[in-house]
């Protein structure tokens, strides 16, 4: 009897459970088995980069709320809401790995978005690769995140300009706009290479930018010379010595690859303490209200590469969309969005579009959908106005622009104005009166204009030992320059000069001791030591 009662209760429980399951699943307009789209937001919500991470999270939340307000994402004909899950990297590699592992194994997210800092993303993406989870990377600038060969990167989509993109746009701008202004004011010859000083962070990001600079110069055959390349450790605060070293190399412009706090100190210390009155070039991550507050007047006329600015909005069709995004963000969070926030916001929309196109949450199908994705730009200007990922390394291409910081008396800070490209610029580039160029014998305070007497002459000098022709204006003479009316006179003089140079018996200058000298001295010392020991 007792056994029958027990089995009876068990059977009743089973029936009730089955009925409950049916009851909860009936009447819901969702894809069978899919109740929500879970997206993990990988960002530094605590630690040194928490300001950026918080912005990324807030932007993602805004995007998700907007999508959900319209019913959610259409997944195979039914609308599914997005649920965001925080993955706090705590601005460290170890915590980044932990965060991504938790998102994938415990929270069971369908997709990842975010990833600030190339170094941290480099570590935590390994986990995503192992589990084959699509990851839209919106915060790491090193191209290595989709180009590394030690893991399968086919699930990673890089929606952030790379360290190759920043220098390319920046140096093209310098070549087209800044260099002509400098050369015109100081009467430099077109043959003279622009002198570029580089100061970069000792990290994947900094080294990536430096490599990008070299690639850009080579790719576009720019007449530029890197006269100084110095590194600094991440989070460094005292740049005076290294800036003094760069100043000694006499650059025309200084390209800095640094984070916000570092960039602020570099520009202020460079101008205020070291007295290097040059044009400072900055990478986009510093287009931030804190930067404008921090640099004060010292940052005036410096150049900021950007794709989303808190203050400047490109003209054209995107203007209205960006204004609305900023307004929505301010209404939701009470502050302005930053660049990383903008790309993370787009990341959520990209994910939604890819899932909609895939019609499923199957990760492989979503990945394939991301590969094929093509959608209109959202709040950041993209090349050709379209968001898509390249077929080789799954990188999206942004249309970067250049801003110049101009002092705004009413707010007591500098504000960025877009100065390039012409299609979206707000104002012209200004070469400030206090600007001091790099080394050139012809550079004097009394810069002359084309209104002075000019004549076309043949010339050679100690740097370029060949006859060339160009226009000389005003006071153009410098040591080693020789000018002639005709090409024949120039060639004859050059031949004579070269002959005399070969014949002259100069007192040989002592050669600097090289490695051989070091080895010889070390060997002699070692022999002397061994002889002494034997005697003992």
């Amino acid at each position: 009897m007792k056994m029958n009662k027990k089995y009876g209760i068990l059977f009743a429980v089973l029936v009730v459970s089955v009925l409950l399951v049916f009851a909860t699943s009936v009447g819901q307009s969702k894809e069978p088995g899919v109740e929500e789209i879970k997206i993990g937001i990988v960002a530094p919500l605590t630690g040194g980069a928490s300001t950026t991470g918080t912005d990324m999270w807030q932007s993602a939340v805004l995007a998700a709320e907007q999508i959900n307000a319209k019913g959610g994402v259409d997944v195979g004909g039914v609308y599914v809401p997005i649920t965001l899950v925080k993955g706090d990297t705590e601005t460290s590699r170890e915590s980044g790995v932990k965060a991504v592992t938790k998102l994938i194994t415990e929270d069971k997210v369908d997709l990842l978005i975010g990833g600030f800092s190339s170094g941290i993303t480099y570590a935590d993406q390994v986990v995503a690769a192992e589990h084959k989870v699509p990851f839209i990377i919106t915060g790491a600038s090193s191209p290595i995140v989709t180009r590394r060969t030690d893991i399968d990167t086919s699930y990673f989509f890089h929606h952030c300009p790379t360290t190759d993109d920043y220098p390319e746009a920046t140096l093209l701008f310098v070549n087209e706009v800044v260099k002509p202004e400098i050369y015109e004011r100081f009467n430099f010859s077109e043959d003279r290479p622009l002198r570029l000083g580089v100061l970069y962070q000792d990290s994947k990001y900094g080294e990536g930018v430096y490599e990008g600079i070299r690639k850009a110069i080579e790719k576009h055959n720019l007449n530029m010379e890197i006269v100084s390349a110095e590194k600094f450790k991440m989070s460094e605060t005292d740049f005076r010595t290294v800036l003094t070293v760069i100043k000694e190399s006499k650059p025309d412009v200084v390209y800095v690859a640094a984070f916000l706090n570092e960039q602020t100190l570099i520009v202020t210390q460079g101008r205020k303490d070291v007295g290097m009155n040059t044009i400072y070039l900055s990478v986009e991550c510093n287009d931030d209200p804190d930067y404008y507050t921090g640099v004060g007047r010292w940052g005036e006329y410096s150049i900021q590469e950007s794709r989303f600015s808190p203050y400047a909005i490109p003209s054209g069709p995107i203007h209205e969309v960006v204004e609305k995004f900023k307004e929505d963000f301010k209404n939701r969070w009470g502050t302005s969005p930053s660049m990383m926030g903008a790309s993370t916001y787009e990341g959520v929309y990209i994910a939604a579009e890819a899932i909609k196109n895939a019609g499923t949450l199957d990760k492989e199908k979503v990945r394939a959908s991301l590969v094929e994705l093509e959608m209109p730009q959202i709040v950041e200007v993209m090349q050709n106005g379209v968001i898509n990922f390249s077929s080789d390394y799954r990188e999206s291409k942004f249309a970067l622009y250049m801003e110049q910081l101009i002092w705004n008396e009413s707010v007591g800070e500098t504000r960025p104005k877009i100065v390039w490209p012409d299609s979206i610029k707000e104002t012209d580039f200004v070469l400030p009166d206090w600007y001091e160029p790099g080394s050139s014998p012809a550079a004097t305070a009394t810069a002359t204009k084309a209104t002075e007497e000019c004549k076309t002459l043949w010339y050679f000098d100690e740097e370029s030992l060949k006859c060339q022709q160009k226009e000389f204006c005003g006071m153009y003479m410098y040591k080693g320059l020789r000018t002639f009316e005709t090409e024949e006179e120039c060639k004859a003089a050059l031949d004579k000069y070269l002959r005399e140079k070969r014949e002259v018996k100069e007192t040989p200058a002592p050669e600097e001791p090289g490695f051989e000298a070091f080895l010889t001295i070390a060997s002699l010392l070692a022999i002397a030591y061994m002889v002494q020991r034997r005697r003992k």
Partner: protein
Amino acid sequence: MEPGVLIQILVWGLYAGCIYILLAIGLNLIFGVMKVVNFAHGELLMLGAYATFWIYTLSGVNPYLIIALAMIILGIIGVFIERLCFRPIKGTGKLNEIFLSLGLIYLFQNLAALLWTTDSRSIHSPYSNVSVSVGSVRLPLDYIIIILFTIVFLIAFQLFMKRTTIGRAMRATSQNRDAAALMGINVERMDMLSFALGSALAAAAGSLWLISGQIVDPYMGSIPAIKAFAVVIIGGLGSIPGAIVAGLTLGIAENVVPLFMQSFAGLLGVSMSFTAWKDTIAFFILIIVLVIRPTGIFGEKGE
């Protein structure tokens, strides 16, 4: 390298040395009297900088005049730390003291983040546009003021320690605590005063750091603190003259040595930048000193 450039770099090194000296003397004072290593000393520098920032932002007063106020505020905080944190655990073991001060690091960092957020803060000195020409070298006035301030602080500190009753009592306590107690010196009060004075010196270092154009955020104290520990060990635990010599040496070395290394590498035909090795220089010097003289330059055996 031009002599003018070298002089300018020496000045930067001198400035850095001044900050390390102020921080290290405070650390030495606390250790000397209380025999406690305060790992949260860098956070006291950070709080001192924030105190100056806050008062300057609210009042607009010349930041150099705010230094004294910041020192008083941190002195009071130092009293509370000693009374509420270190005194209850005195005598319970060194490990407890170490973990307590490590805990204070996180407490102060998070407190600062709560009060001022993690955003970086800075102020602009009223003399930031002023430079003084010394021969062919142009030196910003702020750095000259900072170096002079440090000299004045050190002189005042030495006079305090040598010529005042309290100073002599603190020195007696650091030399022999039991004997000092037997002689009627209130050693617990000396602990409190030494912590207050050490905190005040850290506040001075933080204020000067901020005024020179540096940035303050809740996490900025760790690197200067590590350097201060290196200075203390190089100079000798408990030695004030040692802290001065070591602080200057470290400040100048970390600015000048990378350049010499770069020049030496150039002679060997290697083009390489060593400026990112600044911090490494400090610990390299530390290792050399410890190998040659484990007690530090001016340290005594037994410490």
